[in-house]
């Protein structure tokens, strides 16, 4: 396995007025792994992820994707280079159908003059491709791709979001508290989807508050504290209470232990 990170953030800082959200935060995401990012409220995990997904611009520091320095000014910028984000808020348009949601913001137009002059959408192509995307993730219960998203359950809606991210992401998928709005059963189904993504070799960053979930799917766990990385551990070497201890500052971690090598 490669030891070069797929995505790396170095020394990111971000302040909002007097509030320091990030002070020299680092992150390394290796190919094919699920990296969980945990931390208390205000530890800077959201800001870190927003910088990587282009929703915020860091004051200093740099982000490299497969060794190349990238800089994002809008969420569209990160999307353009293959980083997709799934949000906790079930970011789907309820009245539109599943295929329309999958292709929302990057619709396919018909070929020829119908598409170029009359701007006509190729609904057939989008539906066929959506079906394939949904099927390839093993989501079996979404039968009808023309179903409006509002007729779906919360878990199914999040599955649509994940399928959308998986369909268009070529480099990295970021899942920002993907199960926060879901019940236990539906959360488990989303965790299964995360495993499917890992099987495909796509590296995943998972932000979560839910320790049991993190320990279930993550290969490595990055613990954020006070705007920087406090430690990186693995579910195999550490217990949940240790992670919580590092999160809250009850356990101190040496500088040299902060960059655990990839385990997969």
């Amino acid at each position: 396995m490669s030891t070069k990170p797929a995505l790396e953030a170095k020394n990111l800082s971000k302040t909002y007025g007097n509030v320091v959200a990030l002070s020299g935060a680092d992150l390394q995401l290796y190919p094919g792994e699920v990296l969980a990012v945990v931390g208390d409220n205000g530890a800077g995990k959201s800001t870190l992820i927003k910088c990587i997904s282009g929703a915020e611009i860091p004051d200093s520091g740099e982000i490299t994707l497969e060794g190349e320095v990238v800089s994002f000014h809008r969420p569209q910028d990160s999307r353009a280079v293959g980083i997709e984000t799934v949000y906790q808020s079930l970011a789907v348009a309820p009245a539109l159908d599943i295929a329309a949601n999958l292709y929302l913001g990057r619709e396919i137009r018909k070929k020829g003059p119908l598409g170029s002059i009359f701007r006509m959408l190729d609904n057939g192509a989008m539906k066929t491709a959506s079906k394939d995307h949904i099927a390839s993730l093993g989501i079996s219960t979404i039968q009808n791709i023309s179903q409006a998203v509002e007729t779906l359950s919360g878990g199914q809606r999040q599955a649509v979001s994940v399928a959308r991210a998986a369909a268009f992401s070529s480099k990295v998928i970021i899942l920002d508290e993907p199960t926060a709005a879901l019940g236990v059963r539906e959360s488990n189904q989303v965790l299964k989807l995360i495993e499917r993504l890992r099987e495909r070799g796509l590296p995943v960053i998972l932000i979560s508050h839910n320790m049991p979930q993190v320990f279930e799917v993550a290969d490595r766990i990055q613990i954020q504290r006070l705007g920087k990385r406090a430690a990186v551990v693995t579910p195999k070497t550490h217990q949940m209470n240790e992670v919580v201890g590092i999160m809250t500052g009850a356990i101190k971690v040496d500088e040299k232990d902060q960059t655990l090598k990839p385990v997969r």
Partner: protein
Amino acid sequence: MTLSDAEIAFQSGEGKQSPRERMQKLLHRYPSISPGIVLLISAGVFWFLNPNFKDPFNLSLVIQQVAVVGAVAIGQTLIILTAGIDLSCGAITVFTSMVMGRTAFANHLPGWQSVLLGVAVGLLCGAINGLLITKVKLPPFIVTLGTYNIFNALSLLYSTGRDIGTNELTKLLLWTGSAVKIGSFSITVGVMIMLLMYGILAYSLRFTAWGRHVYATGDDIEAARLAGIETKRVIFSVYLVAGFIFSIAAWILIGRTQSASANNGIDLNLDSITAVVIGGTSLFGGRGRIIGSLYGAIIVGVFRDGLTLAGLAPYYQSLAVGILVITAVSIDQWIRKARN
């Protein structure tokens, strides 16, 4: 069995449905069904009450009477689909009709120049609304309440209190009022332009990415933004397109009344919202069909005409329209519950 071998089976959340729930779902999915049914039933009832109702001359009159409000309702529908509202639509229409009329009368401009100037002013008015909403971030209700008064005042100032009569207008401006015979029906060029605009906008909403983004923005603006849609641009574009549509409606208004007056079309603001609401478009955005607004406009026209033919005093018309509006919004609320 490992996690990834397991079938990912989500609960669909759709159990057994009563006929009532199925009806609710159906109306939810096809929002123009209910106004269509109301139109058919009301036409049937008025036909029964007074056989003259079905007279081609009378039916032609109904459609001619709704041409202007029908056209304004197109722009209003676009705006309401994005969860906005335009209280200034009538004021823009009247103002642009004054621009067209006065440039023809006072500046002796040829017809095409008056029309183009009117369209430019309509676009400008729409752009002002759009900028105030997307850049200054004011609520559409407040913005258009303000611009309603401003555009109204501008019409009155610009008109210098003088109406412009038929023989003071150019031929092209009056052209939208000229009749076209289709069998025993007689419709005007203005009606045809209105229907053409419905066709174009229905196509754009249904078959282009822009239309899809209009729905997505009105449905859930945050979700649309996160999906990478430039929601501000979509909202601005909607007010701009609406400004264009209102200026064409102004041209139809000149043809219909064969004059240009600051006192024409003063009811257009609320009448257009009435047509949109009766047409099944949700005031909360993201749900509705543009063709429903045409039904809505015609329903109001049919009620006004039918009640007159039935020999009732004009205030019964307002009464009926009021009841229609409240019924339509109640049905919309009930349908929206199908979402949960």
